[in-house]
C-alpha cells in the first residue's frame, strides 16, 4: 500500500504540493515553539563573572508549586554572610567568597557616565575577583591581556578603603589607569576613588574593598561581622577534581536552610536571577503561541488535504472500481499524505530551528529575554512536531477520503466528475455550534480587564472562523441561490455562470470563502487585541500620571533617595515620588483551582498620591506604609480594603500584607501595588524612576533641566513616557531603548501574527490555485459549449469577486462581536483601538489574493485547446 501511495503521489505532484507546503510550515512552527519551550526548561546562561567558581551556594530562586512548573523569582534572595567562613573551612575548599553586587558607575573625564553594561550590578567586593575565569590575580603580577601591561600589576591585597579596582574593559573605556583618581557613583552615592588595580579579562565591574562593598550592597549596615549580615551568594574554589565531593558536602550542610548548591552550567542560572526568571517566560510564551498556532496549522493542513484528496477523487474512485475496499482507499489516501508530509517535515523541522533562533532574537532585543541565554537545540522538539503532525495528517486524510471511499464503486467513477450535492447536516450543525460557542469565548474581555482575558477575542474569532469553514458550503449555497433568484434576465452569461457555480459547487466555493474569511478574522481580531490592550494601558497610564516629568538613571542602576530629595527642594517642584517595578507571586484562583502566578507589580509610597491619580475606589494611598498593598478593582472583589493578602515577594520572601487601597488602573499598574516599605530589601537597590510634579512654570522646567545637567547619568523624560518606562507590564523597561514605545509583548505578538499570516496566505493561495486547476475539465466543456476565453476569464473574475465578497462580509461579521466585546471591556466603547487602515488593508489583501490566485491558473488553463484539455482530463 505504501509503495502504491508513493507511486500515486509522484503522479499527482501538483495536488500534493498544497499538502507539502502546509506541513512544511506547520512543522516549522511547531518545532520553533517546541525549541522555545524546551529552552525554557533546559538551557543555561553560561557563567560569566562566576566562571572561576567551582561551587556556588545561593538561596532558592524559585517557588515550587505542586503539580506545576516552579515560579522563577527574579529578585536576588540573600545568603547569611556567616556561611562564608563556615564553608571556607571545609576540606577541599581553596577559597570561599561572599559575593555581592550593587549599582556602580564610573564618571569619565568628560563628566558623562562611562557605559559599562549593566550598571545595576556592576559593583562588587574585591574578593569576588577570585571568581573570574582563570583569575590568578592573587599573585603579585597578574597575567596581562597584552593591552595594558603596566596597569595589570595588581596587588594581592586589592584596593584599600578609598580605592577601587576596575575591570579592564571598563578601565579602557574610561581611559583610567592605576593611580588615577576617578569619580564613582556607587549605590547612588558619588565619591572619588583612586584606581588601585585593573582586573584583566576585558569585562566591566567596579571592585571595592570588601567592607565598603558589603556596606554599599546594603546587606550588613557596615558591619561585616554582624549576625544579620548577608551576601548575594557564596562561591567556592576547590582543589582540582574535588568539585562533586565538595558540592555534596556543602549540600548536606545547607539543605536545611533551603539553599541551593550549583556546579557546572547551573552556575550561570544563579549568577543572574533576573535572566533566569526571563528564561522561565519561554515556556509561557510558547504556551500562549501554541493555542493560536495549532488552530491555524490544523485549519490549513486539513484544508490542503481536502483539496488534494478532491483532486485525486477520480484516481481513488478507479481504485474502488478495480477492487479496493473502502478501508484500503482511505488507508492509501492517509499513507500518501503521510509520505508527502514526512518529506516536507524534514526541511520544515530544520526551518523551525532557524525560526526559533529568530524568535529568540526578537525576544532578546525587546528585553524580554537575556541576550546571553542561548537556546537548547535538542532533537525533541523536531521529533515531537513530526509525531504530532503525523497524528494530525493520518486521521485528517482518512476523514477527507471518507466520502469517496464509501461510494459504490461504479457511482464513485461517475461521481468523480461532479461533487456531492448536499452539504452534510452534521457538519453544518457542528459549525453553527462552534460559532455560537465562540460568542462565549468572546465575553472573556468583559469579565476581566487583563491582557490574558483579551486573548479571548482572537481565540473567539478563530474558533468562529473554523465554525464558518464547516457552515461555509451551506452559507455559500444559500447566497448563490438567493442571488440566482434576483439576477436580472439581462445579466451577462459570465455573471449567470458565476452565480450558478457558487451554489452548484458550494463545497468548493465554501472552502475558498472560509479560508479567505479566516484571513480577515485572524488579522483583525489578533492585531486589534494587541492594539486595544496597548491603547487601554496607555490610556490608563496617561490618566493616572499627574506628574509632568520623570527622572531616571539607567546608566547608574537607578535613582537614589538623595537625588529624589534634592529634586524635591528644587523651585517649582510640588511633589516627588519614586516608582519601581518588581515581581510578586500571588495566588490566582481560576476555574476553582488556585495556582501561584508571578506578575509584575509597581512599588509606590504614600508620596505617590502627589504624582499619580490612581482612580482610587476605596482606601487611601497615604496608608501605603509598612506591610501594605493596594489592589485593582478586579482583585478587590476577593480582597477588599482591610483584608489581608498572602504574597511571595520577588526574592521568595512570604509576606502577609494588608490591603489599604483599591485603584482603577490595573492595566497600567498591575493588579497589586506594593508599599515601598514592604518591598524594601526585596527588590532593586535604587528606584527605577522618580516622578516629578511641578507647578508647570518654565522656571520649574529649567530648574529640572539644570539639575539633570549637573547630575551625570540622570535623565529627564516627559511625564507619561517616563512613567511607562517605570510602570506598565514590562519589568525590564528601565531604559526606554530598543524598540521604542512598542511594548515587548506586543512586538512578539505582532511577529507571531506576521509569520502566521504569511502561512495562512500560502494556504489560501494553495486552496484557490488547486481549486481552479481542478476545474480544467469544466472550463474545457464550457469552451466547447461556446464560451470565449474572455467569457471564461470574466466568469472566473466574477466568481472571485463573489467569493471574496462573501468572505469579507462573513469575516467582518465574525470579527465584530469579539472586537466589540473587547472594546467595551477595555475602552468602554464598542470599538477596538488600532490603525484605521487595518480593516480596509486586509480587505484589499483578500481581494487581490482571491483575484490573483484565480486569474493566473485560469489564464494558464485557457492556453491549452479545449479538446486537448478534455482528452487529458479523461
Amino acid at each position, binding site marked *: 500500500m505504501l509503495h502504491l501511495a508513493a507511486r500515486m503521489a509522484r503522479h499527482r505532484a501538483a495536488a500534493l504540493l498544497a499538502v507539502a507546503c502546509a506541513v512544511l510550515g506547520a512543522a516549522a512552527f511547531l518545532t520553533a515553539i517546541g525549541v522555545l519551550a524546551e529552552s525554557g526548561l533546559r538551557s543555561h546562561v553560561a557563567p560569566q563573572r562566576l566562571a572561576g567558581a567551582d561551587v556556588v551556594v545561593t538561596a532558592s530562586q524559585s517557588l515550587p508549586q505542586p503539580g506545576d512548573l516552579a515560579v522563577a523569582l527574579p529578585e536576588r534572595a540573600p545568603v547569611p554572610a556567616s556561611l562564608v567562613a563556615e564553608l571556607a573551612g571545609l576540606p577541599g575548599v581553596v577559597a570561599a567568597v561572599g559575593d555581592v553586587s550593587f549599582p556602580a558607575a564610573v564618571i569619565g573625564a568628560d563628566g558623562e557616565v562611562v557605559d559599562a553594561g549593566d550598571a545595576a550590578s556592576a559593583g562588587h567586593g574585591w574578593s569576588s575577583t577570585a571568581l573570574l575565569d582563570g583569575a590568578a590575580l592573587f599573585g603579585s603580577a597578574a597575567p596581562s591581556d597584552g593591552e595594558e601591561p603596566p596597569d595589570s600589576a595588581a596587588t594581592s591585597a586589592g584596593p584599600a578603603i578609598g580605592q577601587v579596582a576596575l575591570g579592564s574593559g571598563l578601565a579602557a573605556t574610561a581611559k583610567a589607569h592605576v593611580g588615577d583618581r576617578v569619580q564613582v557613583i556607587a549605590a547612588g552615592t558619588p565619591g572619588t576613588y583612586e584606581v588601585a588595580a585593573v582586573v584583566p579579562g576585558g569585562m566591566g565591574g567596579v571592585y571595592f574593598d570588601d567592607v565598603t562593598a558589603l556596606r554599599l550592597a546594603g546587606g550588613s549596615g557596615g558591619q561585616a561581622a554582624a549576625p544579620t549580615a548577608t551576601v548575594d551568594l557564596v562561591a567556592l574554589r576547590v582543589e582540582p577534581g574535588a568539585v562533586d565531593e565538595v558540592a555534596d558536602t556543602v549540600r548536606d550542610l545547607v539543605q536545611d536552610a533551603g539553599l541551593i548548591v550549583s556546579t557546572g552550567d547551573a552556575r550561570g542560572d544563579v549568577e543572574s536571577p533576573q535572566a533566569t526568571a526571563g528564561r522561565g517566560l519561554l515556556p509561557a510564551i510558547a504556551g500562549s503561541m501554541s493555542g493560536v498556532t495549532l488552530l491555524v496549522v490544523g485549519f490549513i493542513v486539513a484544508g490542503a488535504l481536502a483539496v488534494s484528496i478532491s483532486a485525486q477523487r477520480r484516481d481513488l474512485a478507479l481504485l474502488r472500481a478495480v477492487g479496493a475496499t473502502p478501508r484500503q482507499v482511505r488507508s492509501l489516501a492517509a499513507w500518501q499524505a503521510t509520505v508527502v508530509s514526512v518529506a516536507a517535515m524534514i526541511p520544515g523541522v530544520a526551518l523551525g530551528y532557524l525560526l526559533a533562533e529568530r524568535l529568540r532574537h526578537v525576544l532578546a532585543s525587546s528585553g524580554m529575554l537575556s541576550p546571553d541565554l542561548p537556546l537548547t537545540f535538542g532533537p525533541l522538539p523536531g521529533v515531537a512536531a513530526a509525531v504530532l503532525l503525523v497524528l494530525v495528517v493520518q486521521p485528517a486524510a482518512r476523514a477527507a477520503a471518507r466520502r469517496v471511499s464509501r461510494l459504490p464503486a461504479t457511482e464513485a467513477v*461517475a*461521481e468523480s*466528475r*461532479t*461533487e456531492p*450535492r448536499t452539504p452534510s447536516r452534521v457538519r453544518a450543525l457542528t459549525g453553527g455550534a462552534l460559532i455560537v460557542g465562540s460568542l462565549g469565548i468572546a465575553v472573556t474581555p468583559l469579565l476581566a480587564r487583563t491582557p490574558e482575558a483579551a486573548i479571548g477575542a482572537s481565540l473567539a474569532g478563530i474558533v468562529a472562523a473554523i465554525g464558518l469553514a464547516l457552515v461555509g458550503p451551506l452559507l455559500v449555497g444559500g447566497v448563490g441561490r438567493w442571488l440566482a433568484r434576483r439576477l436580472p434576465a439581462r445579466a*451577462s*452569461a459570465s455573471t*449567470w455562470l458565476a452565480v*450558478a*457555480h457558487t*451554489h*452548484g*459547487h458550494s463545497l468548493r466555493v465554501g472552502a475558498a470563502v472560509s479560508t479567505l474569511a479566516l484571513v480577515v478574522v485572524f488579522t483583525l481580531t489578533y492585531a486589534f487585541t494587541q492594539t486595544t490592550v496597548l491603547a487601554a494601558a496607555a490610556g490608563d497610564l496617561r490618566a493616572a500620571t499627574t506628574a509632568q516629568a520623570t527622572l531616571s538613571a539607567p546608566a547608574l542602576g537607578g535613582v537614589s533617595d538623595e537625588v529624589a530629595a534634592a529634586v524635591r527642594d528644587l523651585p517649582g517642584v510640588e511633589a516627588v515620588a519614586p516608582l519601581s517595578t518588581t515581581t510578586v507571586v500571588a495566588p490566582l484562583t481560576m476555574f476553582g483551582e488556585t495556582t501561584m502566578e508571578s506578575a509584575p507589580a509597581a512599588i509606590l509610597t504614600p508620596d505617590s498620591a502627589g504624582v499619580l491619580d490612581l482612580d482610587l475606589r476605596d482606601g487611601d494611598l497615604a496608608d501605603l506604609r509598612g506591610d501594605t498593598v493596594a489592589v485593582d478593582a478586579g482583585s478587590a472583589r476577593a480582597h477588599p480594603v482591610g483584608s489581608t493578602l498572602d504574597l511571595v515577594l520577588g526574592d521568595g520572601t512570604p509576606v502577609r500584607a494588608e490591603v489599604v487601597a483599591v485603584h482603577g488602573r490595573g492595566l497600567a499598574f498591575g493588579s497589586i501595588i506594593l508599599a515601598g516599605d514592604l518591598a524594601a530589601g526585596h527588590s532593586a537597590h535604587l528606584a527605577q524612576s522618580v516622578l516629578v510634579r511641578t507647578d508647570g512654570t518654565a522656571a520649574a522646567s529649567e530648574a529640572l533641566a539644570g539639575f539633570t545637567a549637573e547630575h551625570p547619568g540622570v535623565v529627564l523624560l516627559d511625564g507619561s513616557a517616563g512613567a511607562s518606562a517605570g510602570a506598565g507590564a514590562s519589568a525590564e523597561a528601565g531604559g526606554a531603548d530598543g524598540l521604542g514605545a512598542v511594548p515587548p509583548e506586543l512586538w512578539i505578538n505582532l511577529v507571531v501574527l506576521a509569520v502566521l499570516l504569511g502561512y495562512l496566505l500560502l494556504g489560501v493561495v494553495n486552496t484557490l490555485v488547486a481549486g481552479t486547476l481542478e476545474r480544467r475539465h*469544466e472550463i*474545457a*466543456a*464550457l*469552451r*466547447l*459549449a*461556446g*464560451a*470565449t*476565453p*474572455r*467569457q471564461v476569464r470574466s466568469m472566473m473574475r466574477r466568481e472571485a469577486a463573489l467569493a471574496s465578497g462573501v468572505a469579507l462580509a462573513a469575516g467582518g461579521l465574525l470579527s465584530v462581536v469579539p472586537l466589540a466585546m473587547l472594546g467595551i471591556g477595555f475602552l468602554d466603547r464598542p470599538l477596538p483601538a488600532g490603525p484605521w487602515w487595518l480593516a480596509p488593508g486586509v480587505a484589499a489583501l483578500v481581494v487581490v489574493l482571491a483575484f490573483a490566485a484565480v486569474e493566473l491558473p485560469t489564464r494558464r488553463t485557457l492556453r491549452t*485547446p*479545449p*479538446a*486537448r484539455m*478534455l482528452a487529458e482530463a*479523461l
Partner: protein
Amino acid sequence: MGGRRGALGFPAAAPSARVGGAAPSAPVDGSAPPAVALTNVSKVYAGGVRALDDVTLAVERGSFVAVMGPSGSGKSTLMHCAAGLDSPTRGRAAIAGIDLTRLDETARTELRRTHVGFVFQAYNLLPSLSVMDNITLPLRLAGARPDHEWLGALVERVGLTDRLTHRPGELSGGQQQRAAIARALAARPAVVFGDEPTGALDLRTGHEVLDLLRDLVDTLGQTVVMVTHDPAAAARADRVVVMADGRVVDSLEAPTPARLATTLTALEVR
C-alpha cells in the same frame, strides 16, 4: 430568429444567426456551400507526428456522415480541424462557407457556438447547471434570445421534458447524452459533430441515441458528422469515410455493418 419552417414544425437547419463577424462567402451561382469542407488539410503535431495528410472532404447539408478508422488513424484530429477546435497546419477548413483558418480563437469560438454543435463520449455537461440551463448554455453565451418554441420541441424530441430541472448527475448516461444532443442543437447549428457519442453507453441506450441522430437528419435536415470505431453505429450514416494513417482511404455510401467490419479489420491487420 426567423427561419424556414421544416417538417413537424421544426425550423429548418439552415443557420440564421450571424455572429462572429465572418460572413459566409455566398456562392455566385446561388447554391448553398457544403456544411463542412476540408481542402488539402494537413496537421502535423509538435514532434513531427503527421495526424492528417492532405485530406479533402466535403459534407453536404442534411447528410449524416460517419468517420471510421483504427486508433491513431487521425479521425479525431479530422473532426477537431473540421469543427474549428484545432487549426490545421496546412490547407483550408470551412463551415457553411466560412473559412475557419483565417479566424482567431475568439472568432472561432463565436462561429462554433452558432454554427457547430458538439456531442462527446463523456457528455461534458456542466454538473452545477440544471439540464435546461445546460441545453440553453450556448444561446446564453452567444447572448441570443432562446426560441422557446424550438427548445420545447427539441426537449420533447429528446425525451427530457420532465427532467429539465434535474442536475446532470441525477440522470442516466443515456439521458445525459440526449441532453448533450439537445444542447448541441439549441442554436440550430449548421452541423453537429459527434465524437464517439455512443462510446460510454450500453448497447440499447447507444441505439436510442443513434436513432435520435438519424431522426434529426431525416426530419430536420440536420447535418451530422460522427466519429466512431463501431461499425454498427457507422452503418446508420448515409456515408462512411474510412481513414488510415491520416488519409481518407475509402468512402462508402450506405454500407452494411458487415461490410464496414470487414473493411476495418482489413485496415487493422494491415
